[in-house]
């Protein structure tokens, strides 16, 4: 950095603790005016925490912040906005029955009387300026996730943000939308806006950013001009060692002709009572992993729940190894041989109960003698699984005190220990660090080798591509197409996920 350039944001010695976990330990961070700056790191490295501190969502335990060279006290998003800082988090804060314009001006309408027409023009002009194509009169509830993200960006710009923080903005986008977002970011850079781009996707960082700061375990491990580093350098900095992918045996292990899991014309409704699955059919054979790719909210959640036995189907049939378990409930699904690793870990464990109890919860009767819990068996079972699956926990620890990775391992252990014939697994590595991710993926491949039929639902396309033998693309509750892993490319999947047929 040239010495005469005043950084748009300078953070020094930022500390943040959550209970016993240190999320940021003495972090220094500089953002130059008019640059796109990647904040790179694994999940849990402390990237989001640092930016939430900058935006006033968290308070730092120690450290200072300067904006444009002047010390700044930021104790709420209100203060952050006053300093010209805007943030688009992963969870959007939009009022869905209102229009785009109303959402954008909400909270900064100074006068009593609203001049909606003028506001609409302003919003429209701002959108055009940075290449965000959006109808200012559209209702937010009618917008796609990508469009909603644009509204969030417009909101920040309307509030005169000169620093824009984007927290994993591409996680919810299809590849084509990512391109549009990047075009917008380039326009913003031309206008002198500084952008913080939080990500753990190396190729995006290489593609769009000018500089990159890498974080690991709450500390900054390095900062560099993006053009002077290679993806391998960054990966090594991120994880502290070169990444090793799970090596999937290319030969389909025991590929048996018969389907272990069959869905025949299944329809189901979502929590709002609207159709979520429409006449969906698919088969998973023993010894294969069928990946389900799709943009979030196209019926993946409901698909998993139908097989897990916790969501009724309105029509169609569900067969496990020929046995009909349509609307039979979770108990019979499990008895038929379905192992279930759900999307939301917390939804399948009782947080206040111990690891040992949670490991036994699905089959409590096997740990019971004449109604009494056999605590020794419960404990031995837990100790065995803890050892076998390298879980960092004791049997008596309440499960809510475990890290995401260890909690996922508990669920994995509870399911895989029974060698299920069918495994339905959703977002198995969401929020896990690299080591835990590799472990979980390795275990799934191991089960495939043992002859389990695995339905893998994931929003992480890399995960789908890495693990699947076949890939089904789900769009609006239908399977659009099923591709062999060999013929599937990111681009092809992206088009199908966006609802386009080839």
């Amino acid at each position, binding site marked *: 950095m040239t010495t005469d350039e005043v950084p748009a944001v300078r953070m020094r010695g930022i500390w943040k603790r959550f209970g016993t976990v240190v999320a940021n330990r003495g972090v220094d961070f500089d953002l130059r005016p008019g640059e796109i700056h990647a904040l790179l790191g694994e999940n849990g490295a402390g990237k989001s925490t640092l930016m939430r501190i900058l935006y006033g969502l968290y308070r730092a335990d120690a450290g200072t912040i300067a904006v444009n060279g002047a010390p700044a006290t930021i104790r709420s998003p209100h203060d952050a906005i006053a300093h010209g800082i805007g943030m688009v988090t992963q969870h959007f804060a939009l009022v869905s029955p209102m229009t785009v314009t109303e959402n954008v001006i909400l909270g900064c309408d100074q006068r009593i009387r609203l001049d909606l027409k003028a506001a609409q023009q302003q919003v429209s002009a701002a959108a055009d300026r940075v290449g965000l194509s959006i109808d200012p009169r559209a209702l937010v509830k009618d917008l796609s996730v990508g469009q909603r993200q644009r509204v969030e960006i417009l909101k920040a710009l309307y509030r005169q943000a000169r620093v824009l923080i984007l927290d994993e903005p591409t996680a919810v986008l299809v590849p084509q939308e990512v391109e549009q977002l990047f075009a917008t970011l380039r326009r913003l850079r031309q206008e002198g806006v500084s952008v913080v781009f939080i990500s753990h996707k190396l190729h995006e960082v290489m593609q769009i950013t000018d500089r990159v700061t890498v974080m690991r375990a709450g500390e900054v491990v390095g900062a560099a001009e993006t053009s002077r580093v290679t993806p391998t350098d960054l990966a090594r900095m991120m994880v502290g060692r070169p990444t090793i992918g799970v090596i999937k045996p290319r030969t389909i292990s025991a590929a048996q002709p018969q389907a272990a899991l069959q869905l025949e014309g299944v329809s189901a409704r979502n929590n709002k009572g609207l159709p979520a699955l429409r006449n969906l059919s698919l088969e998973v054979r023993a010894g294969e992993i069928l990946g389900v790719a799709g943009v979030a909210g196209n019926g993946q959640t409901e698909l998993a729940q139908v097989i897990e036995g916790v969501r009724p189907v309105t029509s169609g049939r569900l067969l496990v190894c020929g046995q009909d378990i349509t609307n039979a409930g979770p108990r019979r699904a499990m008895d038929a041989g379905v192992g279930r690793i759900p999307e939301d870990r917390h939804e399948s*464990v*009782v947080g206040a109960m111990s690891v040992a109890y949670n490991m036994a919860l*699905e089959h409590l009767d096997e740990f019971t003698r004449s*109604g009494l*819990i056999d605590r020794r068996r419960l404990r031995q079972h837990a100790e065995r699984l803890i050892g076998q699956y390298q879980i960092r926990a004791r049997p008596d620890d309440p499960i809510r005190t475990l890290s995401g990775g260890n909690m996922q391992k508990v669920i994995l252990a509870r399911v895989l220990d029974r060698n299920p014939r069918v495994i339905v697994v959703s977002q198995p590595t969401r929020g896990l660090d690299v080591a835990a991710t590799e472990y979980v993926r390795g275990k799934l491949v191991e089960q495939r080798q043992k002859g389990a039929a695995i339905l893998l639902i994931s929003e992480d396309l890399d995960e789908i591509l890495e693990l699947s033998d076949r890939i089904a693309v789900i769009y609006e509750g239908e399977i659009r197409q099923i591709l062999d892993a060999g013929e599937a490319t990111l681009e092809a999947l992206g088009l199908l996920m966006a609802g386009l047929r080839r």
Partner: protein
Amino acid sequence: MRVILPILAVIITFALTSALVLMVGASPLEAYYHFLVEPLSSRVSAVEVLVKATPLLLTGAAVAVAFSGGFWNIGAEGQFLAGAVAATAIGLNMHSLPPAVAVPLTLIGGVAAGMAWVATPALMKTRLGIDEVVTTLLLNSVALLAVSALLNGPWRDPISQWPQSPDIAAAAILPKLIPRSRLHLGFLLAILVVAALGFVLSRTAFGVRLRAAGMEPDAARFAGIQVGRVMLTTALLSGGIAGLAGAIEVAGIHYHLIEAISGGHGYTGIVIATLSGLNPWAVVPAALFIGLIDTGSQTVSRALGVPVYLGEVIQATLLLVTLAVLLLQHYRIRWERRAA
């Protein structure tokens, strides 16, 4: 930590209420002595603390088990009254039977009536999803009015003409634990029920399912637990225990039904369950604590000649402060200067 919290609560309550005590011309320190220490200083009044705690042990346990299982039973009061009515009805007709038969029948009647009283809201909850907080609460008034109707109608005492029932048969009366005191077998039964409940909740598969269904119904359902059925059982268990409390109060203390037979024991049960953190074992100290300040509030007014309601004000303040302290222990205060 858990130990110093009640002490902290007493100190705060003292600070809050001393002005009131001073206003009626008494010394706050003296008042507190009578409130918290005096009841334990003599055998007679110490036993009275146990007597007062007896129904509270049961209603506290009833509410604790319901809340553990995710059934928000606000109707322990009504179930208590239903149990008292049934015990009276049975006890009035036990003249020809030996105590070994009459006493169990009377108590079982109370349990059954408590279960019956909670059955409707429980079924409405599990079958139709109707909020049990409202239904159980409303049924409390129905129970109280039913008691009133009975006492002003068929059961009105023929001799005194007071709105109270005739005495139940001597055979149905609970034996005393200490002669010439008011402490009766019901205290022992209450302790047994609480202990059994603690065991069931922590050591049986049923207890684990009940707690799982109460804490995380979605996770319990996911694990194949039939949450509706578990909740129904929980509700019946809770109502049965509350009904037992009503039966014991009739057969152990009053020997007849009066309108004030409960006087809010069912509601106090909610306070006790909350104080106990829904742990049956902790219901015992919580019920004894409330029994103590119950006894103390009477001692204070008698000893210092202050109005009875002053004791009640202090009691209510102490409860509120205790709950607040339990809740606020999870918070910390942070002072900071506003930047210019």
